[in-house]
């Protein structure tokens, strides 16, 4: 259809040499305009300082020097390191276990599980947080209701000790299914010319999944760990939205992104906020790189 229409127009022939540039042009335009340019602008901001008296002046790397010793920033990073050490192993090992189980064909209703587990990914983080906020609710939440019914003490999901777990649970709920689908797709792509899972009993199917199939998707596992590290260090929406429920625990520098947001939009310190964002970007890069090095060494 497209072809016959095209045939009637005077054709502009675009050759092999320039074709890739023509094809890339729209994406590169938006990429430069809404990613590269803002980054350069932000970097320039981070090298300046705005004072009420004297206006904006160039201060070199002063903002970075301040960020490097800012306890508010590093406490956020440290919090996310602890958060990631709880959240990532639980989420990814659940996702991997479910993917292996579904792939083995050893369960009933595979399609139902696959879709149902993936559904939370379609729920906006805002609404996921809101739903769990209600479930955690100390006055009317169903968990508190069950505890009251059983005459148990009401669990406090917003206490100093519990808050990390409470937020981790929300993100586990949101992203386990997503990671599971990625693992599942990778497992399904492995050729099944060896032995069919259906011909084995439970134990040998288990051995086959863990000994043969699992090692083959290690590159995919590494990719998901990388994305989880990046996502974890950028945590913002979930703690931001439950601030009202946990006022005494969640402060304005709870996570680095939260801190940068507060600096920019509450304190109007755009320059310092930009510097904080870049230092966070550097922290993300360092963690990702360190993980890549570690996994390369592990592979040898």
């Amino acid at each position, binding site marked *: 259809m*497209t072809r016959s229409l*095209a045939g009637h127009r005077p054709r502009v022939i675009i*050759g092999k040499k320039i*074709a*890739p540039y023509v*094809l*890339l042009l*729209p*994406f590169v335009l*938006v990429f430069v305009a*809404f*990613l590269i*340019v*803002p980054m350069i*602008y*932000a970097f320039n901001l981070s090298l300046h300082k705005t004072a009420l008296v004297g206006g904006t002046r160039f201060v070199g790397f002063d903002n970075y020097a301040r960020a490097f010793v800012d306890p508010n920033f590093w406490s956020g990073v440290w919090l996310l390191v602890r958060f990631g050490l709880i959240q990532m192993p639980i989420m990814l090992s659940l996702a991997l276990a*479910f993917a292996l*189980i579904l792939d083995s*064909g*050893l*369960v009933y*209703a595979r399609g139902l599980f696959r*879709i*149902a*587990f*993936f559904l*939370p990914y*379609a*729920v*906006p983080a805002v*609404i996921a947080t*809101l*739903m769990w*906020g*209600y*479930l955690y609710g100390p006055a*009317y939440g*169903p968990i508190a209701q069950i505890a009251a019914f059983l005459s148990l003490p009401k669990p406090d999901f917003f206490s100093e000790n519990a808050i990390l777990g409470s937020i981790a649970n929300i993100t586990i*709920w949101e992203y386990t299914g997503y990671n599971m689908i990625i693992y599942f*797709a*990778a497992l399904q792509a492995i050729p099944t010319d060896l032995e069919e899972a*259906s011909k084995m*009993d*439970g*134990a040998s199917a288990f051995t086959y999944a863990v000994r043969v199939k699992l090692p083959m998707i290690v590159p995919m596992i590494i*990719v998901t760990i990388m994305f989880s590290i990046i996502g974890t260090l*950028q945590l913002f*929406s979930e703690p931001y*939205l439950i601030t*009202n*429920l946990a006022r005494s625990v969640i402060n304005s520098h709870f996570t*680095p*992104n939260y801190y*940068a947001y507060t600096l920019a939009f509450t304190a109007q310190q755009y320059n310092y906020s930009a510097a904080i*964002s*870049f230092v*966070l*970007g550097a922290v*993300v890069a360092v963690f*990702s790189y360190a993980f890549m090095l570690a996994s390369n060494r592990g592979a040898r």
Partner: protein
Amino acid sequence: MGIVGNTVRSARFRLSRWVLTAILCIYLVYTLIPIFYVVTASTKTNADLFGTFGLWFSDDFHLRENLVDLFTMQDGIFLRWLGNTFFYALTSAIGAAFFALLAGYAFAKYDFAGKRLLFALVLGAVMIPQTALVIPLYLLFSKVGLLNTPLAVILPSLVFPPGVFLMRVYVEEAVSDEIIDAGRVDGAGELHILSGLTFRLLMPGFATVFILAFVAAWNNYFLPLVVMSTSDQFPVTVGLAIWYASATTGSGGNLLFTVVMAGSLVSILPVILAFLIMQRFWQGGLSAGSVKA
């Protein structure tokens, strides 16, 4: 698929099958509880929300009244938010998927100067913290007068680097070099080869990237939170979060928790339905992405 019905199986096989299914059922309950809670809460009066058991319906079925409240509250602003979300997500996703398709095709089927560097830049973009981008975007948009306009949300959402990566992998798999060479022999221009010969082959990949970009834009919160300032421009995520905040702090006057719950239900249903209807596409697309990674 791998299950053959007629073979005789050992008791151990059947046992492990039931045990594993039971384990998955436990997680299924965990997955569905928050969604089920939203469903039950949407059907209750505010008094029942606090006074009856959260995970079951109460005698007073109040869904219709809650929906009426939801759509009439503050002169029906919720419908406006839904419309905004739909408009922002649809335009962003169409643009993002189309640009990703062209770029992915170029990366997959051509060699050109700067290819490796450009692709590395695109992949590296995922490491950039949201705030690092959104704050300068806010300041730049304020200079050119784009703040609080739909373009402030749509334009940055056109940049969808994962889509370029997925499309590249997809094109490498789905479009053989022979098809392109045949087009060249026929004397077709490169762009006509793409539009006439291969576009049909690219649709599943395009649909996958479209759905992922659509969900990302539908769920976006941080960018509109920063660049939108009046209620009539909010997407549903920002609007509901504000209602939620005023309900929890008690400053919302007559703003009820049940209305927030009904709003949550209404705003997640379209995406869940889209996922269920189009699952063939995204599952196929994601598996294409996994082959090379």
